[in-house]
């Protein structure tokens, strides 16, 4: 699993990149009450705002971690946003992306580096 400075995690599954937010992010945001996901098939560039989440405290944007195409989104968290808090690394995933070259993930932080990053 890889991590971004935006507190997203990325995991390769069947040549697709699954993206979600970290436990740290989910704790900082507090109870999540609303998730708006992109349409499947959307082409995105790194740092595009692709997901809106709102917690009991505030709204936040989730940025695309890489260039690519959104091929699948997790509708279950739209209907039950609390899943993101309950299982951010599992059932609370956000979307799956198709990227041209999976080696771009090598530049991202591994778990140890992310742990250092959040202190």
């Amino acid at each position: 699993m890889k991590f971004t400075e935006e507190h997203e995690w990325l995991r390769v599954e069947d040549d697709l990149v699954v993206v979600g937010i970290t436990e740290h992010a989910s704790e900082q945001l507090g109870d999540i009450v609303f998730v708006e996901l992109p349409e499947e098939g959307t082409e995105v560039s790194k740092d595009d705002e692709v997901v809106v989440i709102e917690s009991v405290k505030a709204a936040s944007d989730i940025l695309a971690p890489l260039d690519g195409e959104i091929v699948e989104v997790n509708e279950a968290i739209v209907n039950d946003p609390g899943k993101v808090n309950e299982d951010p690394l599992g059932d609370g995933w956000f979307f799956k992306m198709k990227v041209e070259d999976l080696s771009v993930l090598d530049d991202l932080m591994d778990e140890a580096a992310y742990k250092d990053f959040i202190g």
Partner: protein
Amino acid sequence: MGDLERTVFYDLHVELGAKMVPFAGYEMPVQYPMGVMKEHLHTREQAGLFDVSHMGQVILRGAGAAGALESLVPVSILGLAEGRQRYALFTDEDGGILDDLMVANRGDHLFLVVNAACKAADVAHMQAKIGAACEIEVITDRALLALQGPKAEAALSALVPQAADMRFMDVAILPSDFGDLWISRSGYTGEDGYEISVADDQAVAFARALLALEGVAPIGLGARDSLRLEAGLCLYGNDIDTTTSPVEAALEWAIQKIRRTGGERAGGFPGAERILAELDNGAARRRVGLLPEGRAPMRAGTKLFADEAADTPIGEITSGAFGPSIGRPMSMGYVPTELAAEGTRLFAEVRGKRLPATVSAMPFRPSTYKR
């Protein structure tokens, strides 16, 4: 967090794992490890203990106190029975709201609880306008707790048995192991419960004794906000301020007949001309409840439109959040009176999109006061 004040419970909040934030000049707990959503639901299902010591406690003494206070509020204070409390509003000359407050008649004096952010201005206002007619004492050595929820009665009466005999808006001074407690059966969550003033030097022991009782958990400001919004209650500074009149704010219920046109003590408060006229003829706009059709919360500052394409906003949301007990987002805001009828469909602009919301009755969740 420089220059912020702390309540007597600061160390207890930190010990309980609270996340502290600046609020109205104080470092206050916004949430505990339970989190806002669970704290909200816990209060509705069991009992929540809130530190509201940042609020101002003021005593007015003297034979002329009730009459004097009536000159500042459009509320019957002379008609407030001993042992009872009521909601009141300080109004200004333009008919705007300077603060909302609770006033209790405790026999030989009145006891007031005012908002933290307004307390200095409220005291200055009273000193300037009615300081000659009564003695104004600001209480600085007592903390204030709110205990709210269906288990509040069982919890408080375990320590102070007579508390169980009080009804909604009763007040009493009851002796306890923690000194005299100044108790009212009231609160700001829509739940049955109490607000309790306790001497600073006994306050932490009292709070610990309450927290040790079955079902009582500490609750932060985050849940306090969603609880009061579900109950349809105004937050001063958001939903009411000097730019809103009591009638615009849909607070007519707080103005007794005796202070209205034709009443024995009609008028005689700041802004009476406007407020009495609005009571008779209505105001141009009105505070309403709004239920978004989707799941996206519509928060304070969100602009409201009459339809999907309109260029000019017709109103604005003043409070908005997810309502944990109703399982959906909720808002309140101001709209033109002709669009204030329940069932009116309006549009709110959220992140550039026009999303539908319906004008709805408040409270969003029925209150459970013990009347």
